């Protein structure tokens, strides 16, 4: 079994994630200066934006694996694509929750339609939740793998199209004027941001490896059971 080789990145990634994230959070709380405009609450930026970018990365990874599946017709990529979508949804939910809390603290509302990133994530969350509905309602097999792959590819195309749509929609959906979120980052802020970003990616990678190993084990056990019964 080659799973032992594949599992080796797992522990290393987990350690890296722990170190990077703990370091980044500590720095975000104690070292980094307050933002001139938003004050202390701006520090949410250091976890919210890396989570969002990591979620996008997961969706793109899922689409890449999906493309490989359709191209090579190797079912191994199905589980990888599925796990990546799962990770993307997890990080997407985290992005929505952290973004909502940030909106609450910045503007007093739990949700704001004028926050493009949040709205985009809401649309993507709906889209990729339907991915799971799709997988659960089709019997396992190469057909389900292919359909999931096509859907994952559609998702990645939807990301820029939706973003464009949301920007266009602001014209007629009561634009509320809020100050832009991305600060002009001082050097120290950028360092912490990068640390946090690397940590989030490592976390996603570690969770991805563990989840993938678990799913593969599940499949093998099922085959074994069928062979023995």
């Amino acid at each position, binding site marked *: 079994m080659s799973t032992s080789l594949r599992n080796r990145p797992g522990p290393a990634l987990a350690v890296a994630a722990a170190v990077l994230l703990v370091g980044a959070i500590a720095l975000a709380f104690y070292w980094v200066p307050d933002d001139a405009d938003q004050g202390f609450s701006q520090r949410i930026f250091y976890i919210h934006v890396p989570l969002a970018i990591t979620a996008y990365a997961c969706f793109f990874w899922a689409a890449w694996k999906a493309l490989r599946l359709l191209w090579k017709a190797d079912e191994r990529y199905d589980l990888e694509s599925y796990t990546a979508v799962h990770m993307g949804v997890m990080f997407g939910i985290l992005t929505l929750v952290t973004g909502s809390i940030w909106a609450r603290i910045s503007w007093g509302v739990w949700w704001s339609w004028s926050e493009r990133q949040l709205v985009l994530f809401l649309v*993507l969350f709906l889209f990729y939740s339907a991915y799971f509905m799709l997988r659960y309602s089709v019997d396992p097999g190469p057909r389900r793998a292919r359909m999931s792959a096509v859907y994952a590819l559609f998702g990645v195309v939807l990301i820029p199209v939706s973003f464009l749509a949301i920007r266009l929609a602001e014209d007629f959906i009561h634009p509320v004027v809020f100050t832009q979120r991305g600060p002009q980052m001082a050097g120290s802020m950028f360092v912490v941001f990068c640390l946090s970003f690397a940590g989030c990616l490592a976390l996603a990678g570690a969770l991805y490896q563990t989840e993938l190993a678990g799913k593969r084990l599940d499949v093998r056990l099922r085959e074994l059971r069928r062979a023995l019964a």
Partner: protein
Amino acid sequence: MTSYLSDVAVLARKDLLLELRSRDTVPAMLLFVVSALVVFHFALPSETAESDLAASGLLWVAILFTALLGLTRAFVAEREQGLIDALVLAPCDRSAIWLAKTVSVVCFLLVAEAFALPAFALFFSPVDGVTVAAVLLSNLGIAAVGSLLSAIAAASRTRELLLPLLFLPLAIPIVVGGVGASVAEEPGRFLGFLGLYDGIFAIISWASFEYVVTE
């Protein structure tokens, strides 16, 4: 190339003839869209009903859900008669099946909209040329994506349940484009966006259909 187009023509003609004879789907779509518009009238407080902005949104909601109604039936006949397997085994390019289905869905939508737009103008506010253009443009996007998703849903256990879930997130840009075109002073951008959506999603639907439909 010509044999590809003639395959598409044959398949589309089959769908349209079937619909002409059975008259299942289109009358239901017509009735649905008018009923939906009436429900919307009662669903809105009187001030907003007069405002053009709220009203244009409703037209698009009505069109989307009417389209969903029609799309749910799109591959039912093929599924029931086992035609999908026959079509897939046939020596035509699988994507021709998708193109033919898209053409027939567009035709159904056109008939439904021929009723929906006058009804909307009657119940709510007059419909200008830009809105008509937006509706026509959106038909391709709805049909292209809808045909692919309908084939996916037809292969699942939950069929009618699954299609709206898959379709609605993808339909959000269409609504933005359509409502924006009706409402904004410069509709050009929104019409352009609708065209972009149509192009992008038609191409990837066309390219990925064969992966969805083969066993």
